[in-house]
């Protein structure tokens, strides 16, 4: 049979999280589960900075027909956000291509109306507070998201999800598989009220499409077009602190003012005040926690970001 014009047969799904939260694994679990259901599948992670805590995304395409589309998904049918702090980072691209038909699934305790207003999205938004629903270890947030996504798509059986998890995590051993299974299936069940809300999109018609608006490419002298950074201190403008999932916090009572933390900080994010006490620049501290490792007096503590006052929900990216 000839393919219908713009036949809605291709699911396009994107997972957003931070390096270390298992987004690649989540996409693979979902991809594998769809493959179990007899779909053609394509799944891939896209790394920016290959660093724990940095924003990453992964995507899945699934169709009953061979998939010819490739690369980043520009018109998603489902976007899963494992870490809500990404919503305030435009560079993370969480909302890229999100339209009225897109379902947005956000790991957040915030109520849906407030999230919808804050993000200015018209389509269906489903919020789930993973920690309230039994996610005790952030390392498993990927499995939780994959389980929830599988139910929203509505074409994946519980047993296919289970097979996918066993396949994808086989190298990690039984204990880890068990934890992931329990969480993924739990979040699969949790999404029962929303089963099948995700529908495959139509793709772009060749009859009615937005002109790509190519430019007549200008020549510019080498003094302009050399790939060089002339301005000093540009890295100060990037708030790499937004990559952080945990932060070091100083207990001044224990600090011996040895300055080892400042010496070892790879980002020069720790300076010493006049008395010799360290001062942490949280705008640029990436949360590597080398200072915590190095401090001989154990004066640096590790505090999860969401336990700090207000988290970073309201922070804006400049």
């Amino acid at each position, binding site marked *: 049979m000839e393919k219908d014009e713009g036949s809605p047969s291709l699911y396009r799904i994107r997972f957003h999280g931070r390096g270390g939260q298992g987004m690649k694994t989540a996409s693979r679990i979902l991809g594998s589960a769809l493959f179990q259901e007899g779909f053609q599948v394509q799944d891939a992670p896209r790394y920016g900075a290959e660093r724990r805590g940095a924003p990453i995304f992964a995507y899945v395409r699934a169709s009953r027909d061979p998939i010819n589309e490739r*690369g980043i998904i520009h018109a998603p049918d489902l976007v899963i956000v494992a870490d809500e702090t990404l919503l305030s980072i435009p560079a993370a691209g969480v909302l890229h291509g999100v339209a009225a038909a897109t379902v947005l699934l956000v790991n957040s305790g915030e109520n849906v109306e407030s999230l919808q207003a804050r993000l200015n999205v018209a389509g269906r938004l489903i919020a789930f507070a993973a920690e309230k629903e039994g996610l005790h270890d952030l390392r498993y947030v990927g499995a939780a998201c994959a389980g929830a996504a599988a139910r929203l798509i509505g074409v994946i059986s519980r047993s296919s999800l289970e097979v996918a998890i066993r396949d994808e995590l086989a190298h990690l051993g039984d204990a880890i598989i068990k934890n992931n299974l329990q969480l993924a299936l739990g979040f699969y069940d949790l999404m029962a009220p929303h089963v099948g809300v995700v529908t495959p999109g139509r793709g772009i018609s*060749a009859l009615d499409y937005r002109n790509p608006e190519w430019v007549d490419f200008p020549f510019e002298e080498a003094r302009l077009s050399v790939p060089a950074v002339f301005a000093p201190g*540009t890295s100060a403008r990037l708030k790499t602190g937004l990559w952080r999932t945990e932060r070091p916090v100083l207990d001044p009572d224990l600090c011996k003012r040895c300055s080892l933390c400042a010496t070892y900080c790879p980002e020069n994010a720790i300076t010493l005040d006049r008395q010799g006490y360290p001062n942490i620049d949280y705008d640029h501290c990436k949360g590597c926690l080398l200072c915590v490792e190095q401090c001989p007096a154990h004066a640096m503590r590790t505090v999860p970001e969401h336990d700090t006052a207000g988290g970073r929900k309201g922070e804006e990216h400049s």
Partner: protein
Amino acid sequence: MKRILLTGNNAAAWGARLAGVEYVPAFPITPQTEIIETLAYWIDSGEIDCRMTTLESEHSMITAAGAAAATGVRVFTATSSQGLLYGMEMLYTVAGWRAPFVMVNVSRGLSSPITLEPDHNDILAARDSGFLQIHCATCQEVLDGILLAYRLAEHEKVRLPVLVNMDGFYLSFTREPVEIPDAAAVRRFLSGYDAENIRFRAGAPLSEAVAVLGGTLYSYFRYEMHLAALNGLKAFGEIAADFAAIFGREYRDVEGYRTDDAELVFVMIGSFATKAKEAVDRLRDAGIPAGLVRPILLRPFPRERIRNMLAGKKGVAVIDQNLSLGMGGILHAEISSALYGVAGSQPIVAGFIGGLGGRDISAEEFYQMANETLQAVEEGHAPPPRLLFAREELAEVRRMQQIAGVTRNAGESHE
């Protein structure tokens, strides 16, 4: 046979494993490293009987690959981008040894500026080296391409090394369903490597790659390599027929997709060509008879096949994911040369540069390329070459330049 989800990199490792490779000289580079890691894991766990040596550079790695192949063992290696360039001297050199092996290149744009994402300037820099080139569009083709490549490389009328190319990220890190053939079936397709008389052994020394002055001998040896490379066209046809008989998947040196009645044909290589297929389907839905011509074999160059496939078409849109600085698209020049001098009316050949450094090519851009090419057909002359680059991208460049402290003089465009 089993069918599972595999990345392009894993599919490459499976191809090497099934080919029964005996020696893998290695040097890491993104986005290729996963291939070597996978093989290393299998060697370590005893799943394959193979020797791996880590070298201190790609220059040494390619030397080791050629030298090992000259001792009569089956050799596999892989690299990417700067690595391929660093080994460039030895690419030309080992090809002249006529000791065949297979190397995978995972395409990645070249410095400067530096990137990790794909285009084809790396693999096309090796275009004239004597290595034959197979360009893959899917993860399945990566696995199959390696098996085909060994047969091609070791063919008695060829005996040249072969590069199998895949795009970084778009294939290397992307999983797709891949059929992994049974080892027994592969052995029916690809038996052990026979080095014939070109076999270096300590007990029977020979002089390899001798010095020749005056040009006569040099010309003889080099032109023999050229003829051997051209023999690859016929050999590939025979080998692909064997492959289809055993595995049921058909490959030709040039893939044609809906070309028979097409008036407008895209020409491109690599994984982005599947995007072109999608565009062809949608354009046909919209009443535009489009098609795709995709060379799988680029060296040797299937000139006659391409000529025949493009004969009688109105417009051809060649999409180059490479840029010969000061010239333009490399594929555009090669396709144009294939069409030149043929009797009868020739299609308008439009040239587009796109996908440099991993820059995506959208569905809308395929439609627009089709429409602009058809417009040129109406007007009767080829349009000037075009870089796929949107107004908003130029604005983004300007924003980044401002942050980088690029100073524009009064009156210089900021637009």
